[in-house]
């Protein structure tokens, strides 16, 4: 018994003693970060043999890396002119770099690259991400990767590395291998186009020579469904991107606004063959599975929740267009939006917690985000033209939309908080209805 007493006393003493130490100092509260982004230094890569082509790729690669990281909205890319150290001279590994030189230009992170082009087509690229402020030298290297491939793979290599960086920070690989489908009048008529997530590599997809609208990606990235007036009235077309094969859904009346079921070869769309426009569930080949909504009034623009259990859609059952949520299992419908008289084009976030939409309030059309429970309404754009058709990036960090802020309608991208709004691409004609592809992976 006595032993037990001693033992308990001893253990208690250990605990309480640390307690005393903990409260031994005063606390200063710091609540407002001065910078909202991570300052990162990306010097021009080091070229192994310094041939002309290597030097060119070294600059090109570093610039692409900077642009890609800047695109995320997470980083502040530091100006190279201020750098105190030239990694092309001292080398790209941790032993060679004097991190104090990078800390003093404000860099919390540093990316170095070493590349070699051995023959015409082989490119080897080593990329390293350092945390300049880690005390222990061995902890400074956060990511180190070597990529080898052809010269044309530079973009892919850089994007892969950016994915790694993003994963390290956010536990999500980002969207660097994704594409964006959109509608453009570049050819004179509204057609579906496609480009990389950053607006590069634009290609025309449809050539219907007619009005084509509302492109939507299947969740495996292999199919795009859209609406076209090719046959004089709106019909749904389902396109296999690889095989360039098109199926169409030509029920009587208007067949509009297709949206893919997550993880299934099925889609929801608005059809009016019964005389009233309702939302139906279709197979991927266009056969009707069942009628979902049943209500007088127009029901259009479905968007699935990521778990496939609910659909957000637009209905004018209460007068003006508002957003409603339909529960597929209980078949209940609840109204989501109450502010403003005109709310359309809902797009459910990949995380499932939010829905972005465009709404008119005070005579302006803007992008809003609302919780899928109806709480936390946030306006993301304001006083800058007409903003519509929001589409989430597959990681939920960015939203693409189209806006007339610079005159004609163009595609813009912003963070999910509405910051860092910028134009995605410049091309002839008007661009609308961006639709961000899922991560296709490879």
């Amino acid at each position, binding site marked *: 018994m006595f032993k037990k007493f001693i033992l308990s006393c001893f253990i208690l003493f250990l605990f309480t003693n640390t307690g005393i130490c903990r409260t031994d100092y005063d606390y200063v509260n710091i*609540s407002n970060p001065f910078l909202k982004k991570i300052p990162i230094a990306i010097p021009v890569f080091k070229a192994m043999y310094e041939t002309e082509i290597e030097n060119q790729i070294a600059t090109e690669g570093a610039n692409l890396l900077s642009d890609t990281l800047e695109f995320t909205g997470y980083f502040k890319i530091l100006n190279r002119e201020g750098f105190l150290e030239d990694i092309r001279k001292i080398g790209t590994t941790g032993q060679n770099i004097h991190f104090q030189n990078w*800390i003093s230009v404000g860099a919390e992170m540093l990316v170095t690259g070493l590349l070699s082009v051995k023959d015409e087509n082989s490119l080897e690229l080593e990329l390293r991400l350092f945390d300049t402020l880690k005390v222990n030298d061995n902890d400074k290297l956060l990511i180190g990767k070597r990529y080898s491939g052809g010269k044309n793979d530079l973009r892919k290599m850089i994007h892969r590395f950016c994915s790694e960086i993003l994963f390290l920070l956010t536990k999500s690989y980002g969207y660097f291998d994704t594409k964006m489908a959109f509608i453009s009048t570049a050819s004179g008529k509204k057609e579906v186009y496609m480009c990389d997530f950053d607006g590069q590599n634009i290609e025309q997809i449809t050539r219907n020579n007619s009005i084509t609208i509302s492109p939507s990606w299947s969740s495996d990235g292999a199919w795009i469904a859209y609406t076209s007036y090719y046959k004089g009235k709106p019909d749904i077309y389902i396109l296999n991107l690889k095989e360039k094969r098109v199926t169409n859904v030509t029920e009587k009346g208007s067949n509009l606004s297709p949206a893919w079921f997550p993880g299934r070869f099925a889609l929801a769309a608005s059809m009016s063959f019964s005389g009233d426009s309702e939302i139906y569930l279709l197979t991927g080949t266009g056969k009707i599975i069942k009628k979902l909504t049943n209500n007088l009034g127009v029901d259009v623009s479905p968007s699935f929740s990521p778990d496939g259990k609910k659909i957000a859609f637009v209905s004018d059952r209460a007068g003006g267009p508002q957003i409603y949520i339909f529960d597929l299992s209980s078949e209940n419908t609840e109204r989501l939006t109450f502010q403003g008289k005109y709310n359309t084009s809902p797009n459910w976030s990949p995380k499932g917690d939010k829905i972005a939409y465009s709404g008119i309030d005070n005579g302006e059309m803007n992008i809003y985000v609302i919780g899928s429970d109806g709480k936390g309404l946030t306006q993301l754009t304001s006083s800058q033209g007409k903003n519509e058709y929001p589409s989430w990036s597959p990681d939920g960090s960015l939203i693409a939309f189209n806006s007339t802020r610079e005159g004609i309608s163009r595609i813009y991208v912003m963070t999910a908080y509405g910051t860092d709004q910028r134009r995605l691409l410049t091309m002839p004609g008007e661009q609308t209805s961006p639709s961000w592809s899922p991560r296709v992976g490879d």
Partner: protein
Amino acid sequence: MREVTYEHIYLFSQAPDMRSWSATFVLSAICHIALFALCFFINNYWQSSSNNILPGVIDVTLISMPGSPGGKTPVKPEPKSELPVEKPMDKPKIEEPKTVEQPKQPEVKKTEPVIIEKPKVQPEHKKLPTPPPDAVSLAPKKEPPKPPVKDVQEKTQPKDDSLDKKALDDAIAKLQKKVTGSRPQALNNAIAKLKRQVSETGEGEGEGTGGIGNGSGGGRLADRMDLYKLQIAYEIQKNWAFSEHIAGSSSELEVRIVIKIMPDGKIGDVWFDKKSGNTYLDDSAYRAVMKSILPSLPEEYTKQFLNLGLSFTPSGLK
């Protein structure tokens, strides 16, 4: 011995013997009370015997400070904005000599300028038959300690100036924006008021590198320390880069870091008192501390170091 070990285990696992368990519980309760009482007395004794140590959380003080204490304290907080850019030249010196080759001291100094002006000469991979001076140009980098240090300094100093200006302009612009913006307003107000007080009482003087100078007799230690902590908070906040966007929703998060500040302002030690559970927030706070160059401790502060807790609570964006 063996018995004791088993009983020890019972303390933490389910004890089958209820009597011994409840006895332990009672004992532990008694010990708790005794220890708390002890702590209380020790703490009281400590506070009364040592110099008047400040009231706990300075957050409140940041805003209400100018009104409350005697406030005859000389401050010049602004010059600090120049600091982070200036000092860091010290460390490269240490790291430089790592890769040592052959010593060729006398020639090295002559060739230094050559290296700087010929960025094309790439030593590491091109083993071309270049003329002697170029070959030598390899050397300075891999020389024994002293010459290379100069090399670095020569290279960096001029750039440093331009950078300084740029960074400064940048910083000032940002500061102004920030200051007129939301949160630091309070801080800025406090600083402005303090300044006014200083100019009114005419006591401000002598301040080295952003540290607190020794004003005349007026300032008590408590005021000094409040001010000092305000400076620290400001300096670290200035270096804190944190994006809620990356952290996800972080409104409820808090990370507590304790720093041990040596008399010259150097940070002797850093540790986490409480992590937030969000690695990115923890890292960002840690980086902010490591980037910061802190003013030296006030002279009136006689202890060998100051342990100061920093509580980072991002509350910014929507």
